[in-house]
């Protein structure tokens, strides 16, 4: 009895994110002219998965009480890279995929190195490295272009067995191969702990630096996976600064909707994934409701505002005002 209560408390953020997503998606599908078809699900999945990757990346950094404002740019850079490398024979494309993911990881590792060993504040560090990554992307793609291994791309954005979106499967695979082992490892625990109370984590003898470094590097990997998927999705590479910044900001929104604490130490990438899907569904609502074109951004903003305010209902239950402060 007490046991499941604790479990519930641990997973509350994730469960709330799931609930928000389920609610929104139900509304969306119920109003969609085509209804719940595998095409509609696939379209929503492909779009959501991109942000989910970036949100996962952001989660990894946010649990260490940092923030990564370069995730969007890593995605843009790896998108440009993939549009040049994931081509040719299946073997070459496969090697290209590895190279792209490695490049993403490298970007994350660079962020981590500067933040941890240079002891700089993550927010400006990643603003600066974001500019560098965008510059590199521009070097690779001064204007949009490139291509991708189309069979691979279609497989990754298509449907498994004609029904299940392959992109969701890929996302699940990354969660299982990156997030789960990380969060269950000593390094992952050190990352959480340093986000929650760095001094205490140090005094407890945790490998803080290793944990944080790994978090940043894996964040780069996830953002790189996002860039790869962007390429699969668009068959092309583009050094798009605005969309890089947009993804960065969206990732923060997704992370918060996903129940990850921006103060560090608490949250799950799985929650962030649902946060990302929920956030994307906000955009999809425009499609099913007949809003005038000019009112759409306002409508979208208001839904976001309402969604993030939902957490405030918890305040009504707060009986000790000290609980306001984290």
């Amino acid at each position: 009895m007490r046991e499941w209560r604790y479990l519930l408390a641990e997973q509350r953020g994730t469960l709330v994110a799931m609930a928000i997503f389920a609610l929104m998606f139900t509304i969306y599908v119920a109003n969609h002219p085509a209804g719940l078809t595998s095409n509609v699900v696939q379209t929503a999945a492909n779009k959501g998965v991109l942000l989910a990757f970036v949100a996962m990346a952001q989660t990894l950094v946010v649990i260490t009480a940092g923030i990564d404002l370069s995730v969007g740019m890593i995605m843009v850079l790896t998108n440009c890279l993939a549009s040049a490398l994931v081509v040719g024979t299946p073997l070459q494309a496969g090697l290209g995929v590895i190279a792209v993911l490695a490049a993403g990881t490298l970007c994350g590792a660079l962020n981590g190195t500067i933040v941890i060993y240079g002891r700089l504040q993550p927010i400006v560090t990643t603003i600066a490295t974001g500019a560098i990554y965008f510059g590199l992307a521009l070097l690779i793609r001064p204007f949009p272009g490139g291509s991708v291994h189309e069979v691979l791309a279609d497989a990754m954005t298509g449907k498994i067995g004609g029904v299940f979106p392959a992109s969701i499967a890929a996302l699940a695979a990354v969660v299982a191969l990156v997030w789960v082992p990380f969060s269950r490892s000593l390094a992952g625990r050190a990352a959480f702990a340093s986000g929650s109370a760095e001094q205490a984590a140090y005094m407890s003898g945790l490998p803080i630096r290793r944990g944080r470094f790994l978090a940043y590097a894996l964040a780069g990997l996830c953002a790189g996976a996002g860039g790869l998927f962007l390429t699969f999705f668009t068959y092309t590479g583009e050094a798009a600064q605005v969309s890089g910044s947009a993804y960065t900001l969206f990732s923060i929104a997704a992370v918060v909707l996903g129940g990850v604490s921006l103060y560090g130490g608490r949250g799950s990438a799985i929650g962030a994934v649902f946060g990302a899907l929920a956030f994307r569904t906000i955009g999809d609502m425009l499609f099913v409701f007949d809003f005038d074109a000019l009112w759409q951004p306002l409508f979208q903003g208001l839904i976001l505002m309402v969604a993030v305010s939902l957490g405030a209902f918890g305040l009504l239950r707060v009986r000790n005002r000290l609980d306001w402060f984290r």
Partner: protein
Amino acid sequence: EPKVVSGPADEAECFAPWKNDTKFLSFDAKKGPYRIALANGYIANTWRIQMVQTAKAYAAQPEVAAKLKEFKVVSTGEDVPAQISAINNFIDSGYDAIVVDAQNPTAFAPVIRRAKQAGVVLVAFDNTLDTEDAINVNVDQKGLGAIWGEWLASHLPQGGKVLEVRGVAGTSVDTDRHDGVQEALAASGKEFKVTEVMGKWDDAVAQKVTADAIATNGPFDAITAQGGDTGIVQALIDAGHPFVPFGGETENGFRKFCAQYADQGLKCTSAGSGPAQVAVAMKVAIAALEGKTVPQAVKLPLAVASEFKAGQDYFPDASDNFFVGNSFPTCGINFTAQEIMSQSQTNQ
């Protein structure tokens, strides 16, 4: 699946083929009225707002409205995948035609294929799509740059120092226009020393970088800019820089300045692709659905002006941010500023 037919197009005046060898297409006629969608990307700038307003105004014209069962607009933001998803959704929801102002010309291959399979007419404008499987309503971006470049070259017999204020790095429009300018200047055979700055198609940014460029690299003998031109003239005025020949876009504010300071040396050519091209794109889409013959790539006339008459080439009472050049007489499309910007929600 459209048939490739021989030209000319049905409304040959309006639907001019892009090139001599452009294919002509004829889709199987569908019975109207039609469901047409406009998939827009970013919306929070004046050009796009004006474009959406024009689209709504056009759809509301009685003869057009009669052919439409539904006209739906969705703006998805900067994010290309979101726009792709919107088009996918339109396809799945059974729209007859989709008009796209693409965020990126190269990114739509998969969705173009799907549209083709589903028999949906896809018409791209502004940023066209690199494909033969969709109809492009083309503004010649590179040609636009060339117009500015040639015009500057003709106004600088000895060559000289040119300030080029570019747009947003990494986009195809910026690259195309830049290439057009550069090639035209080079082709003139004169000596030009070009200073490039990035103005992001934004007045305040363009004004700042222009001011900096003047202070450190100026003075210049001529200027060309892809956008933010009003800000650039403002920077000239603020810096006390002499007025010089200026090849720029079609902002109302820019043309106001050009008219005002013409006699002080601010010679301008103002050319661009007005937001009203959306109406042409919609017209093409309807024509295609009706089974008429249309070129695969339609060449839009550019709105070019070097003399500025109030009330015709610019509107003294309208906003500086307004884009002039909203008439395509050959297509029977003529909007005034008032018609577009006071098109409010209620009178749709």
